[in-house]
């Protein structure tokens, strides 16, 4: 089986999600090949993509402000139409990964399966597994018809391991003429500075929910996260309310986190939220309502007011220096 992995870069290195997928692709491909597909320049990351399993790296080159969804999908389509067609294309469940696979699905007239946490191959048949109902039920779905099959996987579904491979060969996969569909242009790129670890990579995540009462109280979450060298997160309720940006959201429609410790403050535990954090190693929950579903999965539950518990906890941790 020949597999492509849509590969993304951040701060000069492949993202952890990319390396996880390359690792999985290596074992799925068996005697087949694994190639990486990069929307942009690949020279700086080809060595690492090779180390994790790619023997070839297709790179579009600089997108010139065009959005990856429309540009990279057209470049992929051109390579496939040229005869080098993979059986399976694995995408990270990221903003860009989703956009590229969506456009490509129309161009190839193939279905997409997203939010997967596992994949298996049986002969030429590919199946993927998705958690539903807040992660309580796992559904396995097989692609029908012929490939390329398009599947997106949630971060941390697989463990990244080096395969010890050499640098991959970089092959140009230029973006063809896009016409009207390619008319959008990125004019300014804003990078939000964050001092702490990234939400989906932090060893400790402290999240706040509606129980905080008002936007200004989110400061308690940020202070506690900083003290623990963790990242602050949020439930959908307070993102929807505009207290914190969407990028803070943990859950089905936000980020999936699997930290060593997850501290849920004033979060009741809607399935939408739980699916994004129930893979955490240890869970601590603080909530006023003792019937809150979050206590059903917490290793330590404190039935109490976050406005009383958090300041004391912060003070105790500050006291330890």
């Amino acid at each position, binding site marked *: 089986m020949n597999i492509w992995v849509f590969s993304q870069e951040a701060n000069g290195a492949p*993202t952890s999600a990319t390396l996880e997928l390359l690792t999985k692709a290596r074992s799925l491909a068996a005697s087949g090949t694994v190639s990486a597909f990069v929307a942009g320049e690949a020279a700086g990351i080809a060595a690492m993509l090779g180390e994790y399993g790619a023997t070839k790296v297709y790179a579009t080159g600089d997108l010139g402000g065009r*959005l990856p*969804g429309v540009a990279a999908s057209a470049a992929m389509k051109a390579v496939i139409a040229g005869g080098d067609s993979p059986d399976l294309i694995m995408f990270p469940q990221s*903003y860009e990964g*989703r956009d590229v696979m*969506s*456009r490509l*699905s*129309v*161009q190839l*007239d193939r*279905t*997409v399966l*997203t939010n997967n946490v596992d994949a298996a191959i049986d002969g030429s048949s590919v*199946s993927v*597994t998705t958690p539903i109902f807040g*992660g*309580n*039920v*796992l*559904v*396995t*779905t*097989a*692609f*029908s*018809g012929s490939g390329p099959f398009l599947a997106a996987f949630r971060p941390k579904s697989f463990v990244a391991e080096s395969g010890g491979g050499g640098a991959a060969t970089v092959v140009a996969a230029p973006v063809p003429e896009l016409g009207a*569909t*390619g*008319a*959008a*242009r*990125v*004019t300014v*790129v*804003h990078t*939000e500075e964050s001092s702490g670890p990234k939400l989906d990579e932090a060893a400790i995540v402290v999240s706040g929910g509606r129980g905080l009462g008002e936007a200004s109280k989110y400061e308690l979450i940020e202070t506690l996260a900083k003290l*623990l060298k963790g990242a602050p997160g949020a439930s959908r309720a307070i*993102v*929807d309310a505009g207290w914190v*940006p*969407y990028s803070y*959201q943990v859950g*089905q*429609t936000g980020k999936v986190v699997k930290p060593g410790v997850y501290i849920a403050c004033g979060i009741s535990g809607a*399935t939408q939220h739980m699916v994004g954090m*129930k893979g955490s190693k240890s869970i601590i929950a*603080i909530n006023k309502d*003792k019937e809150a579903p979050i206590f059903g*999965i917490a290793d*330590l*539950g*404190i*039935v*109490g007011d976050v406005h*009383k*518990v958090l300041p*004391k906890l912060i003070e*105790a*941790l500050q006291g330890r220096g």
Partner: protein
Amino acid sequence: MNVIVCVKQIPDPASPGALSADNTLKREGKLILDESDGYGVEMALQLVDGAGGGEVILVSMAPNGELSGMRTALAMGAARGILVSDPALQGSDALTTAKVLAAAIGKLGGADLIIAGTESSDGYTGTVPEQLAELLGLPSVTFAKRVTVNGQSLTVDRQTEAGYDEVECPLPAVISVTAGVVEPRYPSFKGIMAAKSKPVDTVTATDLGVTPVGWAGAGQKIVGVVQAEARAAGEVIEDDGEGYAKIVAFLENLKVI
């Protein structure tokens, strides 16, 4: 300015979901407007208002002729809608859904702007807006967290992993909007009354010429459904003023502090 908003009517997420015999989500009875779509409806109403005229038109697809979710959006201020309803749609994948919505938008003659949520709250495949753009041959900006219209083009702040990008895009275009992009209004009593008589054109997939749909058109089949391993609950204590100390001890035990 005319804006089409794709809205999904879903089973109430507050009640536990269940699967039908064919392993699709049970969608019987009353369906509500997906909360994720309230943002798109509000954004459309504001943009049309700001442009000084035009209409907000809804496009939706449901297997059972349900209209209650669409009525909520009409009560917010949308002018009219088109519902594609057909029992054959049961089991449709995201690509088929996008094909059906694209055909419905084609029947309406298109619009200056088409808005969708980033993903639905029940199926959350999250690909339909971008698939729709490709099918309609339009540019798109996904994950919009701020949108302004300047004449014949849009300026969008688009959410990225690292922050956000400012994107310029000519109209007509498709955008997907994130939760919190605007504050959805509550329907007024007057709006609710008016919504009852606003026109919704109900058509079938066959009327639109989209076949095959449902399971017949899906490029996938469900081969297994199992219960995930349950996570056991731990210790739950009432805070007596010393609850914080329990947390400190727990963290010490894990050696993270």
